[in-house]
């Protein structure tokens, strides 16, 4: 990463090496201290679960039945678990789209828009290629288009943040609405497939041009792409000077500016990485699931991804298991709707509840002696 001037690079590595963590503390103590980051979100999940159970009882439904259906629909059988993994794939990518800017201190929530824009443009531009180019080349071009469009979409919010001081949370959400309107404009207009009168969609890209399944499973390759990207981005954020510079900026932007870090470039690049991830999620939704672009692209993966990222404390590696968990919840949504006679928004209520309780639990950090360093404990 040649983004940081050499002199800064040396200093940066020096500081990383000199951090007291894991040098002076034993492994067990280190484990005990860092378990705070698992324990508190776990407490939040339990509290949110209890509140949701109370909510279910208030509307006259059985929480136990709910749990049984989530298990059955999301994890209970090989079939349902594969369905959950299938839904975890876009969630990993959209959660990464939140996590990377979050390390810079930015609250970017435009994943849904980048997913829709990436998915729609790659579908629209692929249709003329169908039958002319071979499938593998078409898919590579589609993935590139989706990633680039997504990168530009969220990158715009990042650019406006740095160059004009525009609040990135509001602008990225506005861009989501604009993206959905943009897709509807074409899908209901000039790109509408006349052969499909029921649901306005683009033409199909065709079975031969779709992304295949991972051999031996029913899960498409988007899951592998998501996991690989999560690992790569973890390495980028935790093990490179680029990531270090980004985290310094997130910790204290003034210090970063004084240090001469290229804050503007960091914001722009991290936003673009975020957008590219969400755009790729759109690519897989089109090329592996839907086969065309329509309103189903805006299924809320971008919004669930925000929750996944916050629950994983914006750690790319932790995002993967959390995304599988929520993939299962989303996958079980249909079953809950049919068997328990509850609206499809039930999952949305649970997600909202978890999110609210999780954010409230932030206040617990540093409150428990159990997780403190031994030296600090003696003092208090």
């Amino acid at each position, binding site marked *: 990463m040649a983004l940081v001037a050499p002199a800064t690079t040396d200093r940066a590595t020096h500081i990383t090496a000199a951090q007291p963590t894991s040098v002076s503390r034993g492994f067990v103590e280190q484990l005990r201290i860092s378990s705070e980051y698992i324990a508190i979100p776990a407490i939040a999940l339990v509290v949110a679960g209890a509140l949701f159970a109370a909510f279910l009882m208030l509307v006259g439904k059985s929480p136990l039945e709910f749990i049984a259906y989530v298990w059955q629909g999301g994890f209970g059988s090989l079939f349902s678990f594969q369905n959950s993994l299938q839904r975890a794939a876009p969630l990993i990518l959209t959660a990464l789209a939140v996590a990377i800017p979050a390390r810079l201190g930015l609250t970017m929530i435009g994943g849904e828009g980048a997913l829709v824009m990436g998915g729609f443009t790659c579908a629209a531009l692929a249709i003329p290629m169908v039958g002319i180019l071979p499938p593998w080349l078409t898919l590579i071009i589609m993935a590139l288009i989706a990633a680039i469009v997504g990168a530009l979409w969220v990158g715009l919010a990042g650019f*406006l943040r740095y160059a*004009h001081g525009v*609040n990135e949370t*509001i*602008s990225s959400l*506005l861009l989501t609405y*604009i993206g959905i309107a943009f897709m509807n404009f074409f899908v209901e207009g000039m790109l509408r497939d006349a052969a499909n009168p029921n649901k306005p969609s683009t033409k199909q890209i065709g079975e031969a041009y779709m992304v295949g399944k991972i051999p031996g499973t029913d899960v498409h390759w988007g899951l592998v792409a998501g996991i690989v990207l999560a690992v790569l981005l973890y390495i980028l954020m935790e093990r490179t000077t680029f990531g270090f510079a980004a985290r310094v900026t997130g910790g204290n932007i003034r210090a970063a500016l004084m240090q001469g870090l290229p804050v503007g470039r960091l914001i722009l690049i991290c936003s673009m990485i975020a957008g590219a991830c969400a755009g790729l999620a759109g690519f897989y939704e089109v090329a592996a699931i839907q086969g065309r672009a329509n309103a189903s692209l805006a299924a809320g993966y971008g919004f669930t991804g925000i929750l996944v990222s916050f629950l994983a404390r914006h750690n790319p590696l932790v995002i993967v298991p959390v995304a599988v968990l929520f993939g299962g919840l989303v996958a079980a949504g249909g079953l809950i709707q049919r068997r328990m006679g509850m609206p499809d928004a039930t999952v949305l*209520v649970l997600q909202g509840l978890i999110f*609210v309780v999780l*954010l409230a639990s932030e206040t617990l950090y540093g409150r428990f002696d159990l997780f403190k360093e031994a030296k600090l404990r003696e003092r208090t």
Partner: protein
Amino acid sequence: MNDALATVLIAMLGGAIRVSTPFMFVALGECLTEKSGRINLGLEGTLVLGAMCAYAASYHTGSPWLGVLAAGVAGSLLGAIHGTICKLPKVNDVAVGIAMMLFGTGLAFFFGKPYIQPSAPRLPSIALGAFADNPGLKSALDVNPLFFVGIIIALLLGWALKNTRWGLVVRTVGDSAPAARAMGISVDWVRFLTTTTGGFLAGIGGAFLSLSYPGSWNQGLSSGQGLMAVALVIFARWDPVRCVLAALLFGGAGAIGPSLQAIGITQGYYFFNSAPYILTLVIMVATSSAKRSAKDMPGELAVSR
């Protein structure tokens, strides 16, 4: 051609009045909240939940005004939750807003499912256009009383913030929390109250959506109006009266698509639908600056950004 232009302009006038009302209520609520130094991004969820509650209450009681009240109560509940959570130390109000947006929307969709089909009594409107011969003008001037209620609230709020004791308290809390604490004011309590009141107003904005215009309840009723209203407060530089003017501008932008449809131009309907979002974004770019915080911004907001 002139007739067509007149039709469009009249339709836009009527549209601006109708579309702007929910913007106005949400913006006034957010303006009050932000004046006390806190941001509530969750008002989109409040708007949707307010719309659902108003429709349901109006359907069950037969009185649309009880619906408006129900929407206000639901909105203030969401506001109170936001206010309570943000009282806790180390909690980020922007993130809580996002969570409340998802939670409020989820609740509204959950409980609103049975109300998509039935029709509830709607709010009556005042026929200001009774004198006019032109049917277009007549319908454009059928104004909902909530529009005037909003203007009165804006004037009252603007006056109270400048001239009353509690207005001073809210502004002090918003400009410098340490100064407010030194004066013996409970910063958390004031912010809790402004967030709750802000939620009440945003809920009423939702009632307008479901009980007046468009005047029905469905899941696509609000798509970002609550969010745009939050952005609009920045543009209005935290002044309630300017919030009304900005809301009218946004209402006009939102009415372009339907107005053109009135004379048969349906081309680009979806494009014009996105006009308010694009306008919001352009306005945000024009009014923000990377180098200084926005003019008249409450001091505590500037710190947190």
